[in-house]
């Protein structure tokens, strides 16, 4: 799909918000793809990590509907490998927070099967809810 956009749209409010929340200069990304290459869950993603940051760069908010940002496991492989020093994990978190801070949970606590709650250790629930439930 081709995007036609004037340069000023690249500095949309969306980009600024993501940059502010993540503290990262997303414009520095030159699409080398190292992040996508190292991402352990890339196979399941619809958008590759490098594509996600590209969407942010051009201010395309449809990135918020991608499965990718919720599949991210915060493993920081991308963050430590980026040659431009962009912490992509923080960008992913910012994108998640744009939904979570609207009080929209990504997982429904009541739908977690009882058998799972029986065996899941606290660490799994705490970290999962931290990333997937409203902030």
């Amino acid at each position: 799909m081709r995007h036609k956009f004037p340069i000023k749209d690249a500095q949309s409010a969306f980009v600024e918000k993501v940059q502010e929340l993540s503290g990262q200069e997303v414009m520095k990304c030159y699409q080398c793809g190292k992040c996508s290459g190292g991402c352990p869950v890339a196979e399941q993603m619809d958008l590759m990590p490098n594509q996600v940051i590209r969407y942010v760069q051009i201010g395309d908010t449809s990135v918020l509907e991608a499965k990718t940002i919720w599949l991210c496991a915060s493993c920081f492989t991308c963050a430590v490998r980026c040659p431009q020093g962009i912490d992509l994990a923080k960008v992913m978190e910012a994108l998640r927070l744009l939904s979570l801070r609207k009080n929209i949970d990504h997982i429904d606590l009541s739908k977690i099967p009882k058998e799972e709650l029986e065996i899941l250790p606290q660490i799994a629930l705490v970290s999962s809810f931290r990333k997937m439930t409203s902030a």
Partner: protein
Amino acid sequence: MKISYYPGCTLKKNALNLETSALAVGKELGIEMVELPRWNCCGTVFTLASDDLMRQAAPIRNLIRVQELGENQVVTLCSMCYNTLKRANLLVKNDNEKLATLNEFMDQEEDYRGDVKVIHLLEILKNDVGFDKIREKVKKPLNGLKVAPYYGCLLTRPKEIGLDDMEEPTILHDLVESLGAEVIDDPLKTECCGAYQTVSNKEVVADRTYNILTSAQSRGAEAIVLSCPLCDFNLDHRQKDVEEKYHDFEKIPVFYFTQLMAIAFGMDENVCGLDLNYVNPLPLLRKKKLIHKKRKRSER
């Protein structure tokens, strides 16, 4: 050496085996780990939003507990707690304004001064005890046991808090070797297990686990050793889901590093807490003549 110890919520129940084996092994090496009073859940994973201070309260509150005792060091066993506490600590040490706001918010507590150091038991083993001393303490060398160390993500990443090299860490390798076992180096040793995806998306974890374990197995590994209760849940308990999806998969026992140490030190099997390991490690240990008694695993 006496040091404050931060367990983390999972070590009191689901990962009790990590705690019991660690405390026993520590005692044997002259490390007395004293549990912090009134500690709270560290709130893993470290919050990545630049403006989020509320979620820093949980880890910093624990560091205040250390400070209250007049101590300046705290040791953890769990990789995720280590990462969360250490990153929060670094954040407030480098930002006076954030620290002031946090201290003001936590008005029931004394102000955190930023002097506490967060360490992982592996660092104490390497730097304060030394692997040579550990080697001396081994009564039952793990001869013939092929172990693949698995580091996961949060022990070594990001660099500012990592306790070893991010791409080629060796601390678990060195430890396992000092216990007499054969170390199997595996390229996926720092690949993420899927972490918290295990709650809402265990398919992802099943795939990650399959890849990580079969990679180690293809290199001859008979067991995995690790440090994190979440990695342990994913690589051990979730083998059930891996089996269901991949019919060629063969189960492989997973140990905490302190469990292997306890076995090598010839400690009582109760201390090792092998009952809580999902994939039964006893057949393997029996085969390698590392346990003697014919122990029945209690019903779970």
